[in-house]
């Protein structure tokens, strides 16, 4: 049941509206004047000044893949992140690790790992879901490009952003 | 001429009221102000019963009607200046102003009867919705009619004619929830606008040929034999086409049946009386300068013949009374056109008065009956049992429309035929007489339904006091004028 909110009864002076308008104009003019005279503290001058230094630890920037100390790509191509990704920005092509490899018991590695940054919404669910702690949201927030293709981060690019992650989970190392 | 006592009495009263003589334009202004006041009251007094407005309007119009008998004469068109170039207050116009006022009063009375129907066309609204305007608009129409009959300049004719027409647009489509009414409104609008276009173009040509729009000076200009008449004639034909639409002459009658049937019944009555009368007044005024030209007369004779034949023949098979009256209105336009051909102003005038009485009478009954039963002729079956009063009124109306002696309708036809015979318009007379026979058939069909047929229902039809009074007055005057026509003839003479 909808409730009808009664309109307030206005006095004739209020119904004239003009004083209210003038008051409004005065307010906006005050802001204008203060700005003009430099009294208003303006926001950060972005390209010159950046947030980077003051970004918090938990800032969610561009997602990236990381390697471990051994230089191995941590990702095991389990595709959980691909599955969870709300905008479906992640695309993974798993590849088999040959038995001769040192990490043969890991079985799989991402042969291809693309994140479409046009789609990505920086929600961080991939990071959260990753059992291998292989994907992290970094602090890069100015992701730009000239073409759509450029905006698709492939494995190399992701690894480049991600770099090496030290000593978090050493599961596979311990099991060797 | 010997003054009958009551005329002498009127003369005395007139003399004694010389002091407070009214000029003619004040009548229109009074009506206009009345209309405005009613509109204002309508807008701001939302609580009152809107019928009070109708009664107020009737009372106001009645006052103006009385006042119209004490109007000072206007300067003759020959030495008119300024304002009087457009406006004349001769006997003829004063008479038709009274005519318009009377019509409006009766129509307003009908409208009070019709109010429930209007209400039902505004569903979901308060019971008073739209009524105020319904009562106010006829007043403005009345103003237009009053101006129109005084107009002696094409510009003024155009303007006042349009005032009438536009207010009729609204009135015709007033019950706007009814698609039939809307269709009628649209048809009326389109064809009226078409006729307006013809009117304007015709006026343009007449102005171009003569350099005048004033009818009086136009006469002088046309009398100049050096002038080439073909251009003026083209203009006249175009104007005639336009007026043909207004008076519903064949072949410009196509709107009439649909609009008459679709419009709210009081409006139909108004349309068939007010609009038509005004059209004829204008026609008479406009034709006067052109009757010098023989082509004009031939043209009008042709139109009159077609109108007579079409109107009467098409009326024969009608089963809907409103539609029947529509065709009969076309037929009556034919008879009136005979009078126009002969240019017998008084015959046309008398016919119009008779037409006013009998048509309004028929419509007044129709409105009351239609709300109880319907508009078909078969709905009138056994009316004589259900309401002897209404049946008798309708009988008088129909009999008068058919042209039976001792009713005004007969005298109207008598004067018309008299004029035609005097001018030896044999063709018109022959066709006229034959069509009168047709008329007897279709008007008596209604009488037959009322008196011969037995009704399905037998409950009484109530008639309220005001309507009863109005209908009685109409009956009495129909018969009275059928016996003693002199007042009307005298009214025009001075």
């Amino acid at each position, binding site marked *: 049941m909808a409730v009808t909110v009664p309109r307030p009864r206005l006095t004739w002076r209020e119904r004239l509206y003009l004083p209210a308008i003038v008051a409004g104009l005065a307010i906006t003019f005050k802001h204008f004047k203060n700005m003009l005279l430099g009294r208003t503290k303006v926001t950060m001058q972005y390209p010159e000044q950046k947030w980077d230094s003051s970004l918090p630890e938990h800032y969610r920037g561009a997602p990236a893949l990381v390697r471990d100390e051994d230089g191995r790509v941590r990702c095991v191509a389990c595709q959980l992140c691909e599955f969870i990704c709300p905008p479906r920005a992640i695309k993974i092509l798993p590849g088999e690790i040959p038995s001769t490899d040192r990490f043969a018991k890991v079985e799989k590695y991402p042969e291809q790992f693309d994140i479409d940054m046009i789609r990505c919404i920086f929600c961080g669910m991939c990071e959260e879901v990753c059992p291998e702690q292989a994907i992290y949201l970094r602090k890069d927030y100015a992701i730009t490009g000239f073409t759509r293709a450029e905006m698709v981060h492939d494995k190399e690019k992701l690894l480049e952003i991600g770099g090496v992650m030290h000593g978090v989970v050493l599961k596979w190392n311990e099991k060797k | 001429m010997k003054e009958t006592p009551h005329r002498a009495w009127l003369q005395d009263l007139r003399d004694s009221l010389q002091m407070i003589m009214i000029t003619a334009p004040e009548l229109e202004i009074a009506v206009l102000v009345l209309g405005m006041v009613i509109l204002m009251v309508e807008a701001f007094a939302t609580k009152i019963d809107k019928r009070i407005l109708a009664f107020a309007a009737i009372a106001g119009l009645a006052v103006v009607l009385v006042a119209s008998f004490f109007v000072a004469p206007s300067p003759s068109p020959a030495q008119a200046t300024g304002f009087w170039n457009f406006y004349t207050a001769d006997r003829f116009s004063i008479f038709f102003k009274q005519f318009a006022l009377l019509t409006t009063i009766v129509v307003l009375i009908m409208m009070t009867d019709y109010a429930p129907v209007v209400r039902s066309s505004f569903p979901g609204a308060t019971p008073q919705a739209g009524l105020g305007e319904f009562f106010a608009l006829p007043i403005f129409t009345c103003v237009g009619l009053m101006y129109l009959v005084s107009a002696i300049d094409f510009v003024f004719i155009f303007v006042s004619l349009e005032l009438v027409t*536009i207010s009729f647009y609204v009135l015709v489509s007033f019950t706007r929830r009814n698609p039939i009414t809307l269709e009628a409104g649209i048809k009326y609008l*389109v064809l009226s606008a078409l006729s307006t276009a013809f009117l304007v173009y015709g006026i343009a040509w007449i102005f171009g040929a003569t350099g005048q*729009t004033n009818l009086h000076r136009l006469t002088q200009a046309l009398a100049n034999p050096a002038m080439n008449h073909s251009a003026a004639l083209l203009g006249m034909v175009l104007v005639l086409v336009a007026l043909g639409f207004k008076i519903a002459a064949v072949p410009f009658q196509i709107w009439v049946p649909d609009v008459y049937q679709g419009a709210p019944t009081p409006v139909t009555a108004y349309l068939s009386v007010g609009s038509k009368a005004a059209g004829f007044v204008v026609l008479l005024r406009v034709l006067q300068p052109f009757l010098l030209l023989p082509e004009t007369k031939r043209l009008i004779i042709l139109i009159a013949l077609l109108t007579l034949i079409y109107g009467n023949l098409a009326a024969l098979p009608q089963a809907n009374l409103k539609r029947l009256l529509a065709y009969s209105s076309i037929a009556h336009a034919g008879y009136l056109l005979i009078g126009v051909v002969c240019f017998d102003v008084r015959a046309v005038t008398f016919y119009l008065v008779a037409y006013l009485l009998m048509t309004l009478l028929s419509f007044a009954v129709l409105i009351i009956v239609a709300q109880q039963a319907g508009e078909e002729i078969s709905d009138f079956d056994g009316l004589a049992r259900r309401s002897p009063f209404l049946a008798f009124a309708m009988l008088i109306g129909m009999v008068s429309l058919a042209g039976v002696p001792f009713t005004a309708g007969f005298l109207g036809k008598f004067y018309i035929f008299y004029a035609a015979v005097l001018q030896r318009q044999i063709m018109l007379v022959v066709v006229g007489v034959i069509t009168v026979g047709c008329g007897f058939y279709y008007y008596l069909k209604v009488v037959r339904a009322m008196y011969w047929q037995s009704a399905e229902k037998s409950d009484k039809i109530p008639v309220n006091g005001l309507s009863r009074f109005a209908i009685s007055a109409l009956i009495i005057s129909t018969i009275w004028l059928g016996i003693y026509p002199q007042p009307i003839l005298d009214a025009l003479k001075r």
Partner: protein
Amino acid sequence: MTTLGDYLLVSGILFSIGFAGVMLRRNLIVILMSLELMLNAANLSLVAFSRFRVDPNGLPNYNAQVFVFFVITVAAAEVAVGLALLVALFRARQTTDVKDISSLKF
């Protein structure tokens, strides 16, 4: 030089075009437009005549121009009512075609 006849002819043609439109078209809106054409053709004639009949002051005959002024006003009012009617009809019938408006028959 252009003569009065040229203007009259042009106005006559426009009038006929409008008339043809009224008779041929079935869409009420277009019919209303054609009516406007006719009225304006008449106005053109009037203005031409007004310019042609120079009055003693050496000015055009302004009477005709005043008339044109009235015609324009009235036509505007007419159109307004017409369109309002049209809208009302459309609400009732969902059509503006003349052919569909035929519940009233002979």
